[in-house]
């Protein structure tokens, strides 16, 4: 069993320094890995990123993160990434990593992701350049996620996790106004997850959303935005032998 702790949208700034550290120090008792689902800072400044870095520095469990839209606001995502990596986190964007937890190999594929909306209610790559750019960015993130999960499929992982900031499914947005769903996620992320396969998808971004959801392909989705989970993190127990494959359910054991 792999104990996966996750939280997003912690929105740290100098005035919140140290608030999560006491809870994070309990991680070795209940989790093997900590996933951070973006929006780790309020404005994406190096000063705020240093607060996050100090919060996770030296933790006894590996930390894997993606950035969120807030972490891009100041236009310095590379600096935010460097500061978090200096504190020991792996910050993913369009790539995967394998973390060894005990004897298990945990593959994490990460991207910030982007908006665009969900099946039948999504934006298209058409019209004004800024609209095309919007949709292209979402597609680019989703393609990076798919490629990362496919890479991990060849890395003998016991479990594979898709880590994003934006949501892959509308289900975990329940509670948010319907009108803003296209700014909260994209079905392209879910399509990437279902195409490449994963055991769990974790995202943040939707503060008024709902924790539990599932992709059309049967991959469980958890919205771990801190306002949603109401804690410093939530823990999910994943079992190595009960992965949910991509696509339709497997036939019974006497099938082909």
């Amino acid at each position: 069993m792999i104990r996966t702790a996750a939280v997003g949208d912690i929105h740290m700034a100098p005035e919140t320094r140290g608030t999560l550290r006491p809870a994070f120090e309990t991680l070795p008792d209940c989790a093997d890995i900590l996933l951070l689902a973006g929006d780790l800072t309020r404005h994406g400044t190096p000063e705020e990123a240093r607060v996050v870095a100090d919060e996770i520095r030296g933790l006894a469990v590996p930390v894997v993160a993606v950035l969120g839209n807030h972490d891009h606001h100041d236009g310095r995502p590379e600096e935010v990434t460097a500061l978090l990596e200096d504190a020991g986190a792996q910050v993913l964007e369009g790539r995967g990593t394998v973390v060894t937890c005990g004897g298990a190999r945990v593959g994490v594929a990460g991207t910030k992701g982007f908006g665009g909306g969900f099946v039948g209610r999504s934006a298209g790559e058409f019209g004004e350049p800024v609209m095309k750019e919007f949709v292209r960015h979402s597609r680019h993130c989703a393609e990076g996620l798919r490629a990362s999960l496919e890479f991990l499929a060849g890395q003998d992982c016991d479990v594979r996790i898709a880590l994003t900031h934006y949501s892959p499914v509308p289900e975990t947005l329940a509670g948010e106004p319907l009108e803003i769903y296209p700014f909260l996620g994209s079905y392209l992320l879910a399509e990437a997850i279902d195409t490449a396969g994963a055991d769990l998808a974790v995202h943040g971004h939707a503060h008024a959303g709902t924790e539990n959801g599932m992709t059309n392909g049967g991959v469980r989705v958890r919205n771990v935005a801190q306002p949603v989970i109401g804690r410093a993190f939530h823990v999910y127990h994943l079992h190595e032998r009960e992965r949910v494959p991509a696509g339709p359910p497997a036939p019974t054991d006497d099938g082909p």
Partner: protein
Amino acid sequence: MSNHGQERSPGAPAATGQDAGDNLEYRVAHLRERIAGGPLGELGVRLEVRGEAVLLTGTVPSAHCRDEICGLVDEELRGRRVHCDVTVADASSPDQAEDLA
């Protein structure tokens, strides 16, 4: 001209090009944009017009952040009733895990 359900103070004139700046719905919409895009950078707070009052809901990372936002809204909408139901995120450890068997 429809006011789209907008409630106005008793005796307030109908919305026209001259007084659109006093339209509470637009003021609240612009205030929400300021809270999201300005120095506060807070997208997680919802502002809603409820009759003559304005209701703020959401969860923010600190009491400092909550006080900044509620203070700004109070100041900008001086004379209006503002209900600040913004809560601060809980930073405690969970007491249970979810088994995804």
